[in-house]
C-alpha cells in the first residue's frame, strides 16, 4: 500500500472542513471493505484518507413522519438486527442479508455500498424500489437527490469531492405493499451479484391479484442499476392471476436490461436469468397470497 496521510473527523462539521480543505486529494473511508481492497491494489489516486467511521451523527436508524432514515454509517448487520427495518423497509433488509459474509456485513456500511456505486451493489436496487432519497452535504450547504439521480456510471456518481453523504431516507412500506429482493450469485456466500432484482408493488385490495403501483429495479445488468418500466406498467395494467400471466410479464425484463459479458456471466445468461429471477420472485409472492416471505 502506498504512503497515506490519515485524517479523522469525529463530527460532520469537521469532516466537511477537511473535505473542503483537501478538495481534489481526499478520499473518505467508512467500513473500508471496498476502499482497503482498492488501496491494496493501488487503485486509489488520493493521498489523504478521511476516516468518518466515528461520526456518531452519521450512525443510526429512526422513523419520522412516515419516513425511515438509515444513516450512512449503519452497517448491513445493524440493518439485519433492526426491527424498524424489518417492518418498514424489508426489501432493503432482504438485500443486505445477501451481502458478502458476516464479517463483511459487520463492517460494511450502507453509505459505502451506495457511494461505491457498483452496478452490482446489492442495497442499491432495493433502495431504488423503496424510492430512497439521499442527502448530500458540503461546507456550502446541502441538497437532496433521489437514489436514481445519484449514479452516472459504474463507480460514478454526482457526489462532488467536497460532499459527504449524510442521510438515506425512504417512505415506510405500508400494509398493502409487498415486494422482494432476489440475487443470483455464483454461490451462496461471498458472491458478488451476477444479477439481482428488486420489486415493490401496492395491492389494490385483499383477495385481488391486481396492483396500482409497481417499482422494479435490476442490478448488474447495465452500467448502473436500472428501473424496469415496461415490467412495472405490465404489472399495473394486468391481473397476476396465473403463472402464465406472470411469466408473460417477467419476459418483458428481457427488454429492460443491457448487460455485458464478463468473468461472472455472459450477456445471454444475464438476460435469461433476469427473466427467471423476476418470474420466480413473483411466483413465490403469489403462492404466499402476496405477503412478503418472512
Amino acid at each position, binding site marked *: 500500500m502506498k504512503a497515506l496521510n490519515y485524517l479523522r473527523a469525529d463530527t460532520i462539521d469537521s469532516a466537511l472542513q477537511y473535505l473542503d480543505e483537501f478538495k481534489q486529494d481526499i478520499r473518505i473511508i467508512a467500513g*473500508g471493505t471496498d476502499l*482497503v481492497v482498492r*488501496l491494496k491494489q493501488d487503485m486509489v489516486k488520493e493521498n489523504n484518507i478521511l476516516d468518518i467511521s466515528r461520526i456518531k451523527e452519521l450512525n443510526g436508524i429512526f422513523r419520522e413522519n412516515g419516513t425511515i432514515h438509515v444513516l450512512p454509517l449503519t452497517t448491513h448487520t445493524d440493518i439485519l438486527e433492526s426491527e424498524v427495518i424489518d417492518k418498514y423497509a424489508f426489501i432493503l433488509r432482504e438485500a443486505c442479508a445477501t451481502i458478502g459474509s*458476516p464479517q463483511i456485513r459487520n*463492517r460494511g456500511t450502507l453509505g459505502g455500498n451506495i457511494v461505491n456505486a457498483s452496478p452490482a451493489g446489492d442495497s442499491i436496487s432495493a433502495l431504488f424500489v423503496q424510492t430512497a432519497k439521499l442527502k448530500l452535504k458540503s461546507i456550502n450547504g446541502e441538497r437532496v437527490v433521489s437514489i436514481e439521480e445519484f449514479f452516472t456510471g459504474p463507480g460514478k456518481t454526482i457526489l462532488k469531492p467536497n460532499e459527504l453523504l449524510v442521510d438515506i431516507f425512504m417512505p415506510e412500506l405500508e400494509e398493502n405493499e409487498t415486494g422482494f429482493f432476489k440475487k443470483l450469485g455464483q454461490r451462496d456466500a461471498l458472491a458478488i451479484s451476477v444479477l439481482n432484482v428488486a420489486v415493490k408493488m401496492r395491492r389494490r385490495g385483499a383477495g385481488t391479484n391486481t396492483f396500482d403501483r409497481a417499482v422494479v429495479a435490476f442490478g448488474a445488468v447495465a452500467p448502473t442499476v436500472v428501473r424496469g418500466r415496461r415490467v412495472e406498467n405490465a404489472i399495473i395494467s394486468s391481473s397476476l392471476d396465473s403463472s402464465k400471466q406472470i411469466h408473460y410479464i417477467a419476459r418483458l425484463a428481457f427488454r429492460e436490461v443491457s448487460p455485458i459479458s464478463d468473468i461472472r456471466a455472459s450477456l445471454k445468461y444475464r438476460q435469461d436469468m433476469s427473466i427467471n429471477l423476476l418470474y420466480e420472485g413473483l411466483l413465490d409472492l403469489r403462492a404466499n397470497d402476496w405477503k412478503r416471505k418472512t
Partner: protein
Amino acid sequence: MVQTMDISFALNGKEYKLSVPANAVLLDIIRDKMHLTGTKEGCGRGECGACTILFNGRSVNACLILAPQADGAEIVTVEGADVERKLLSIQKAFVEEGAIQCGFCTPGMIMSSLYLLNKNPNPSISEIREGISGNLCRCTGYVKIIKAVERASKDIGK
C-alpha cells in the same frame, strides 16, 4: 515518508499504546507488532476469513481495517481466552471432532464460531453454516467443523 499514528487499543483484555504506519492494516499490527500470529493472512481481501477477529464485539476481517482505525477499539484474537471464556470450549471441540487438518483456517473459523455463539448460543445446522460462511477451508469439507461448533454449543450450555 510514511506517516505514523499514535493509537491505543485493548487487545485480549490488555491495554496497549503504540505507533502504527497510516498505511498498514490491523492484521499486520497484530501479527508483526503484537507478535500474535494465531490470526492468519490468506487472501488479504476479505474473502477467506483466515484473519477474522472480534472488533468491538463483532467479527471482522482484520486484513481490511486500516491500522489507525483501530484506535480505541476492543480487539479479541484466537489467543484471547482470558476475555472470551467460550474460546476454550470451541477450541477443544475442534480438536475432539477432528475439525482441523492443515489448520490454516482454524483460528478464523474459531473466531467466527465465537461470534456466532455469543449472538446465538443454540444455533441450528443452517445457522452454523451461515455463521461460518465467511471462512474458507480447503481441507475438511466443513462437515467436521460444523459438528465441532455444534458440540461447542452443547458444551457451553452445560
